[in-house]
């Protein structure tokens, strides 16, 4: 064989081997978390292992539409995961436990199913150095201690003719013998408080105004703003930006009917329910904050309402609940 022929053959062989080998090498050394809509498998993998105090670097790429990535109960900005692009996220855990990550972009009617877990092992660091992380809810939720059945109907037997005004109620409430404790507020529905005020000489609308003022006194503008922010990001897709249960997915969910409620394995022991309308006074005025906390924590099992207990902190849930009542009460002038 001539030298030129030999060199040419070697060149071709080297070129082929390197163009196959190099991409394969880099590809196998780049562990990507592939993200699909839930119907196509959601997060893959959806269980990630990590160690306390070791930075966890994740590379996420979407294989279809825009998704978002955030870890529940962690103080972090959600990260957009764009189709065909790689998003880099570095997480630090200073406590062991199972963390839930979830999709933060409304990617489709099964968006709410897109969850995964990060299992963090190791021994916890000194709690005083913990930064950026909130303590997990330590206490038993109130709906459990109160023995509330959060699936039972809780309609308010009576509703006000116009939106109760907290400002008007403030003056009336000054001299009334009202239990001002937080426990009283958390454990009672607006209607229950309205009912107890029946012993006073106030008119019905005055009583509702007093209820509104009590609810306002148990929240702060910051808490309401935070609740509104969380609602817009996580709840409005189904419940609607104005809380009326008519979010962008409400129609899709109704159109998909029972089938959208099936588990991904096809079992359909779930029932179709349209998203709750928070502007409906019968429903909202009959619900106590503790009841709502239970519903949000646990989710509406089998209805499409996800469980948020692994994602929101306790404080975030109370902020959210305070905001939900603002669909009923006028907190402004």
């Amino acid at each position, binding site marked *: 064989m001539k030298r030129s022929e030999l060199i040419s053959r070697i060149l071709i062989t080297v070129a082929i081997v390197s*163009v196959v080998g190099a991409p394969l090498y880099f*590809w196998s050394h780049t562990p990507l978390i592939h993200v699909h809509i839930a119907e196509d498998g959601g997060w893959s993998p959806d269980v990630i292992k990590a160690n306390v105090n070791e930075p966890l670097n994740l590379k996420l790429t979407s*294989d279809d539409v825009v998704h978002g990535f955030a870890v529940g109960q962690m103080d972090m900005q959600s990260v957009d995961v764009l189709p*065909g692009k790689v998003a880099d996220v570095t997480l630090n855990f200073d406590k062991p436990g199972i963390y839930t990550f979830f999709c933060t972009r409304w990617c489709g009617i099964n968006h709410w199913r897109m969850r995964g877990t990060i299992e963090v092992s190791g021994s916890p660091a000194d709690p005083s150095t913990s930064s950026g992380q909130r303590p997990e809810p330590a206490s038993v939720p109130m709906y459990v201690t109160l023995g509330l059945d959060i699936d039972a109907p809780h309609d308010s037997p009576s509703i006000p003719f116009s939106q109760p005004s907290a400002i008007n109620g403030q003056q009336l409430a000054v001299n009334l013998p009202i239990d001002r404790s937080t426990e009283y507020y958390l454990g009672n529905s607006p209607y229950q408080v309205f009912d107890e005020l029946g012993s006073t000489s106030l008119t019905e609308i005055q009583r509702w105004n007093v209820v509104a003022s009590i609810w306002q006194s148990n929240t702060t503008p910051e808490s309401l703003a935070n609740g509104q922010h969380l609602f817009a990001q996580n709840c409005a897709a189904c419940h609607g930006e104005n809380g009326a249960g008519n979010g962008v997915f409400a129609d899709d969910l109704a159109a998909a009917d029972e089938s959208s409620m099936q588990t991904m394995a096809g079992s359909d022991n779930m029932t179709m329910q349209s998203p709750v309308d928070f502007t409906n006074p019968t429903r909202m005025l009959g619900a106590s904050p503790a009841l709502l906390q239970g519903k949000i924590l646990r989710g509406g099992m089998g209805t499409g309402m996800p469980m948020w207990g692994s994602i929101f902190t306790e404080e975030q849930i109370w902020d959210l609940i305070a905001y939900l009542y603002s669909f009923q009460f006028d907190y402004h002038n």
Partner: protein
Amino acid sequence: MSRFELTRIPFIKNTLKSRYPQLAVFIVMLVGYIFAILAGLIGTPVGSHNFSIVFVWIAWWAILILVAVPFFGRGWCAVCPIPLPGEWLQRGAVLSPPDKKPKWLNLRWPKFLRNIWMQNISFLLLALFSSVLLTTPNITGIVLAAMLFAAIGLSTIFERRAFCRYLCPVGGFIGLYSQTAPIELRIKDKQICVTCEGKPCYNGSANGYGCPWDVFPGGLTKNTYCGLCMECIRTCPHDNIAINLRPFSADLAKPSTRMDEAFKAFIMLGSAMIYAGVLLGPWGAFKDAAYNVGTSAWFIYAVIFLAIIFVILPGFFTLGILKTKGSLPLKQRFASLATALIPLGLMFWVAFSLSFVLTNASYIIAAFSDPLGLGWNLFGTANAVWQPMLTFVLAPAQTLALVGGLIWSARTAQKAANEIRTSSISVIAFSFILTLVMLWLLL
């Protein structure tokens, strides 16, 4: 007609005659081709960010249909890497012929398949799945790999480049449209070929291989089946092979009478129109049908697709020429006059391709830096945003291409009709109506 012999320039002639420049280009192309296969198989499934889709269906296609075919005819075939591995096996060498030839079957291609019907079929097979093929990296990777392996396999069974000549889905239409290109490989003096002993251009010699495209250069009158591989330039002992610059569409003056080529013209014309309607049109239902391969909607789409190409377009065309007087039988008139559809179809493809190429060219910039979607940024352009380019020239350029195509087609029709002594009026009317439809679809 006037010609200018490019091979008279020593630099051009030596570059073409030497095997090294060609081999260098082949290697680069082969690397790109294999990388496209790999990217399709392991890269992101998001087509717009995967090298295989962006570089094959946007970059390569743009270069092929807007530059290579119109100006260089089979210029792409001259650098296409698909035959390289198979020919290495078949020839036992990558450069000049070796002393000992390897023993492969080396069969002649079957006689009944010595036409481009297989290419018509292979093109249609891809065309019917094109919505999925053009957007799904996996499928693109598999199809590219299949073509490479088919070429290798056929090289060991049949002689010469059987895949390129008879099977390649792309080669069929490149050959058809290469007749319009202003470049050709021809012999200089016929008498030399007549008296040439051994015909090494066809049979091979120590200097090179017998025509890989199974063509005798001495008999070349059109570009259709000459792959511009330059072997005959190397083997001709009399320096009788020339590469010429020539006027556009020179080959169309002598119309073909072959039905496979006539139908190729209809297939290409019809596909361009269907794609313009389905891929670029506003009809979501068509798009869904084309995309959902295997569903009943897709089957209906496939049937309509084939009906337009094989029944509706040829049917109206035949009706038009039915009444024209001519001494030739209808079948021959049909094949000859279909020549007019070659420039028309080419310009339909140019107009159609302009829109999606200009719209999507910006993906090339981003995919260059992150070809597999692994988060790389090789050249700092990975985050280039998608942005349609030169949008203001799109409509004028498309109109120009279509109107130009119509005029070109009308002139070709006149010449073809003159050649067989019949009227061109119905063919021109046919082209005119199709151009109006295409204008409506694209603008």
